[in-house]
């Protein structure tokens, strides 16, 4: 046994491990475990704040090595321009390979969020993701989803087993005990891994603040050209946005709580242009972060349905 005097000092230091320290250590453990056990991992990188945190954790986990897997961006061609800028910059800063996949069928058919409704998500994102994972031969894919986002996520394991058709069967999940993750799969099967499972939106923001992680400027309030559609404030990010005859975008001070395809992502009116101010607003707000996303409102339990079909 260690000498009592030394144990005392250890105990004192131990109480210094905060919830962010413990979350960080847990995520790093998960990232390393996948790299140790999977043949060919990949990290889904959506350029949002959760992706930014996940990428940062990967750099920490494998330092001084470069994270030994590529980043994968499943592009829809409809993301905010500022997201494309940060995507390329962040991948370069990490020294990691960036794979950009655009579903060729969606591209050929000109699928867009204005004319095609939920087919936009199905084809660009769900199908595009499946194509990219298959093409890369990836047997493990990291995603930045958190359990506090949505009820179907709350029940998903950290290592989420997917059949050869990439579907999710909530009843066939492997029990996860302690920190023992079973990453064994057969040929053709894969796992989706969620290192941020136990983080909340507030944890993410606090960690971004603590670590000084760069995020897309759209998370901070600034005057931007906007229009209103179905109760959502949308940003007119480029000239593909169909305006009604005579309609002029209105400049509003807005920011985004979550980032996706710009025609599908609602902004909030805000003056919060610093991290503490954003966190302050988030804590005082009365709506959840996915509220600005059109995808969840399609139907009851729509996220669970999408996951069964192969959505992340």
């Amino acid at each position: 046994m260690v000498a009592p005097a030394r144990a005392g000092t250890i105990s004192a230091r131990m109480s210094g491990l905060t919830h962010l320290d413990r979350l960080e250590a847990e995520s790093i453990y998960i990232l390393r475990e996948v790299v140790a056990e999977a043949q060919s991992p990949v990290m889904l990188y959506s350029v949002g704040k959760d992706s930014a945190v996940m990428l940062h954790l990967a750099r920490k986990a494998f330092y001084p090595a470069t994270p030994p897997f590529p980043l994968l961006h499943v592009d829809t061609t409809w993301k905010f321009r500022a997201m494309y800028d940060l995507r390329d910059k962040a991948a370069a800063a990490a020294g990691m390979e960036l794979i950009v996949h655009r579903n060729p069928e969606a591209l050929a058919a000109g699928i867009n969020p204005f004319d095609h409704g939920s087919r936009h998500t199905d084809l660009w994102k769900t199908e595009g993701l499946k194509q990219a994972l298959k093409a890369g031969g990836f047997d493990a894919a990291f995603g930045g989803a958190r359990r506090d986002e949505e009820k179907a996520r709350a029940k998903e394991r950290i290592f989420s087993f997917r059949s050869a058709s990439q579907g999710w069967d909530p009843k066939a999940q492997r029990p996860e005990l302690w920190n023992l993750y079973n990453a064994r799969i057969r040929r053709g099967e894969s796992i989706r891994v969620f290192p941020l499972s136990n983080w909340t939106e507030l944890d993410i923001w606090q960690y971004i603040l603590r670590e000084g992680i760069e995020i897309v400027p759209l998370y901070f309030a600034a005057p931007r050209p906007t229009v209103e559609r179905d109760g959502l404030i949308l940003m007119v990010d480029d000239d593909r946005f169909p305006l009604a005859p005579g309609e002029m975008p209105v400049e509003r001070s807005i920011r985004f709580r979550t980032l996706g395809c710009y025609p599908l992502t609602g902004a909030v009116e805000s003056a919060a242009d610093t991290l503490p101010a954003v966190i302050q607003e988030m804590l005082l707000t009365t709506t959840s972060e996915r509220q600005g996303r059109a995808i969840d409102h399609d139907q009851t339990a729509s996220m669970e349905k999408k996951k069964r079909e192969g959505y992340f």
Partner: protein
Amino acid sequence: MTVYTPDALIAADIHAYLDTHQSKSMLRFITCGSVDDGKSTLIGRLLYDSKTIFEDQLRQLEADSRRVGTQGTNIDFALLVDGLAAEREQGITIDVAYRFFATEKRKFIVADTPGHEQYTRNMITGASTVDAAVILVDARKGILTQTRRHSFLAHLIGIRHLILAVNKMDLVGHDQAVFDDIVADYAKFAAGIGIAGFTAIPLSGLTGANITARSDAMPWYRGPALLPHLEAIPVDTDRAAMTPFRMPVQWVNRPDLDFRGFAGTIAGGSVRVGDRVRIVPSGRTTSIARIVTFDGDRGSAVAGEAVTLVLADEVDCSRGDVIAAADSPPEAATQFEATLVWLNDAPLVPGRGYWLKMGTQTVGATVQPPAYVVDVNTQAHLSAETLALNDIGVAEVFTEAALVFAPYAQSHVLGGFILIDRETNATVAAGMIHHALRRAQNVHWQSTHISREAHARQKGQSPRLLWFTGLSGSGKSTIANLVEKKLHALGRHSFLLDGDNIRHGLNRDLGFADADRIENIRRVGEVAKLMCDAGLIVLTAFISPFRAEREMVRGLLPAGEFVEIFIDTPLADAEARDVKGLYAKARAGEIKHFTGISSPYEAPEHPDIRIDTRTESAEAAAERIVEHVLGVWSLEL
């Protein structure tokens, strides 16, 4: 109540708020109880009272409550937690769900686990990571079978803080006598199974009584309300920090020739630069040269932190090894007594090979027939042949390689394991080590002076195990013999183990029942492994009908050394050939357990080589096998 309404501070001074919340601690707890004890309602209430529910979620909740709720026009908090569509219809929680909320002092992670008997595996899953358990009891019903089961499981998995939440007090008129009776009843049971202590709280998830603050409805209750109690429970990490240093190596970090670091999460104790450490199980000692992190080198690190260690000397160390304090290293052994909780529909097959994963170690393992299973209601020890879904038993576990361990009571990281089915890859059991059966003579393996590499080098070849599998009469022995002749002619050192011959000697005590077939293959696998260690090319010709056993043998050898050769003959062809007249006897019922007739043959799904005997002659097949094997070698050179 001010504790749970931080809005004022947030609005007035966000920086002060952020400072406070940066240094919050984290507590994980589990809620468990019978169906209808009101778990989901209680969690919904905690989320609601800690202001974790947003307005849009609340609107959805109100709409759902009216549509499918059970509380009339009132909010049904259970709907907040019951996530999946299927269970909304059934009205029960069927999986582990995780919920998050925070107060000024703590971030909480709640595992909501099912009360339904058939889902015990989810309870064990949820309970394995928590610091505390809230066990719900319906005040009208008192202690039920499920209460005892869940308390036993919580205690079994080592949860040290138990809270007995006597719920629905509003439905018994907030009567102290009801509460006292239940507590007395539970205390008797708890003492009987070795629970050192628990905290009992009378409350109502529905009305919120004694949740965030003491309720006026129960002035007789002098203890803490639930949430303040959860805020005050000590987190278990202090215990881990008090033990000697241990870090299971998770991943070897080798970005270039100049850096070799060992990445891992510290399981126990602390480490400083300059500390003497021992690599277990090899037993080599060295010292810590650097503690590397992304944020710069550190002087020391403690349990719970994920770091990368650089050692002063170039010693062998890889994933699965444990870097430990040099003067008090953990033990390594191959035979253990353990408690097993069976989590899978397919019951334990004693003697069958499973993967055992503990910390960062994965080894092949077999389980002996259980010494007993525990009746969770009476804690009586019952005899059993096997373990079925939800069974809890004590059994001996044998591993194929030395496992670095500590008793589970001392370390969850070095004493808790899972068993994985080699065929389906399902996680089939959770295990907790009591102690090693026989201490290894030394902590270190006896390292032999002539290594297996040296043996192989001397023979000028890479060891291989050419494993022929197929039906009786498919031509395994014929082709294997041809292959060996060719190898011999090429100057290779080989040896052929034939099924029939082995059964005349080494395995003459074994019959043909499933358990005997498994033991037969296990022994052959071990013998073949020794011969590979000696540098030979080993050929085996056994029906070996089960995938799990073939995979077990594959796992005995270094990657790539096991070559599975499937002699694929349709049953009709083998039967028509019937060289030994066995099929005729099996059809006549004279031979029991005959593969293909009365016992299954599990064909390889991805054999390394497949020989179709309808289209390929034995001579051509043998030629192809030799080419395949030599071809692989020539690539290596």
